[in-house]
């Protein structure tokens, strides 16, 4: 079962590998702004959405692919967790 912490860890790993290859992982925190600070541009955001959809088997609606839902790793983990439904 994925909890927010494990989702956040996978998202962080993906962002570091894809977009921040030489970054010190400790600099990327769960509250670091991603879109508003230009870490994810629009193409990178699309790639990230494609990754979480595939990895977690969810569908992100167009209106959710926005700063409001994707600007930090914590936001993304929360969105994914909500889409997976509540653990029994």
């Amino acid at each position, binding site marked *: 079962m994925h909890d927010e912490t494990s989702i956040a860890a996978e998202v962080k790993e993906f962002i570091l590998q894809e977009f*921040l290859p030489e970054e010190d992982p400790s*600099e990327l925190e769960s509250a670091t702004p991603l*879109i*508003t*600070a*230009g870490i994810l*541009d629009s193409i990178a955001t*699309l790639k990230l959405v494609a990754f979480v959809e595939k990895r977690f088997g969810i569908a992100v609606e*167009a209106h959710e692919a*926005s700063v409001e839902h994707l600007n930090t790793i914590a936001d993304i983990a929360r969105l994914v967790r909500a889409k997976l439904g509540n653990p029994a």
Partner: protein
Amino acid sequence: MIRGSPLHEVLTRSAAARPGHPAVEEADGSAISYADLAVLSDRVRDRLLVLGVCRGDRVGVWVRKSIDSVAAIFGVLKSGAAYVPVDPSAPAARNASIFADCDVRVVLVEERFEAALRAELEPVVPVMVVLRGSGGGCGLRTALDAFDVAAIAPRGNTVRTSDDDLAYILYTSGSTGKPKGVMLTHENATSFLDWCTETFAPRSEDRFSAHAPFHFDLSILDLFLPVVHGATIVLIGEELGRDPSSLARLIARSQLSIWYSAPSILRLMVQSGALAEHDHRRLRIVLFAGEVFPIVHLRALKRFWPHPVYFNLYGPTETNVCTFYRVPDAIPEERLDPYPIGKVCSHLHDLVIDELGQPVEGNGEGELCIGGPGVMRGYWNDAALTEARFITAGFARWYRTGDLVARDECGDYVYRGRRDRMVKKRGYRVELGEIESCLSRHPEAREVAVVALPDDEVGLLVKAHIGTEAGKRLSVVRLKQFCAQSLPAYMIPDHFHFHALLPKTSTGKTDYQALAKLG
């Protein structure tokens, strides 16, 4: 012809001719008729007059793209003032510096931005009209109602303006690190709109995309040309505007017939918008501007959309569109070069000069200069810069675009590059010097040089080279956050490279060519 009348009069005319027709629609389906838009913008005018706005003043608008902001813009114009739109997603420090620079009398601002703006503007804070939110005109109506509780704004009259009055000031990236305010008059806009009417022959049943943000010069066509013809503006918000698959759905659902944007979003739609799944047959005109449209992507787009007429429009904010080129219906397979920027628009005049300011003979390369009623009055509060950008030749005043052009065998202008260090990224003007000036304030940056390189996937990559102690790597996450405090997101460099010393030319200046070769 609307030249000779105030810009906002187009709304008064269409409200009388087509009162019930939808003037503006939002992506969620909310709409406002011409009659209601006229009334709502009258209310904005009346409130601004009570707040002391006079002819010639400036009024700031920091409101997301919405029926609210459209009504606000018309209201400002009716009050005799010029509107100053800012990027809703830009940092408060940047927007506050713009409002302070042009000394706005009133700011219309959404509540979520108000505190940060106020803090940046202290101690000289202009009057603020605060909208709880925006969408459907509700936020604006509620804000006006709240003022009316204390004292109802008496019904005023639309202030008489002349052709030479400022209608809006658009701030663009400035090379010194400070955005510069391009002052545009009613006549600048109306002469341009008359040319649009002559060239595109819009109809009252047309449905126009409004994709560009309002602080961007493409928005002048989006906002006013539909109103000239009593047609409908379909607003595309910032988030939706970046999402190719939602956009493709919206174009079909909203039955858009005229599209206008920078090429980059059209390219994204080709690549990931699933265009084949939608019915876009109502599209009859596709306009693009702001950057080069690589031919392979334009060809791909025309495969999905073979039916519309395509125009490549060119022009800096200082002139709005000044040359145009109609793309042929079939693009030959062997063509690799982008299409020309075309010939000068009928309301303007063109001149090509060499480095000494002398007219270039024949088809030789030189800097394109533009004269005529579409050309800006100048830069706000910067007479020196204004003077530097204009030349006088043959009794006329010409704006130097800074763009190098040459004519092809058909007499069309072909874009050859820039004289200075300005680039276009996703259609936005970016002065690399403004990014350098931001990064050079970073405590660990000893020297900074920013270069832009073409890139097959995204069009253009901006790379920052930073000299640090012993070439130490800095955190890119932290650097980007540092930039985001003073630059809009599209200006934040894509990549950072660190050096102990930046390469120098023989005269000791930063060697930009060597940096560009590093890739």
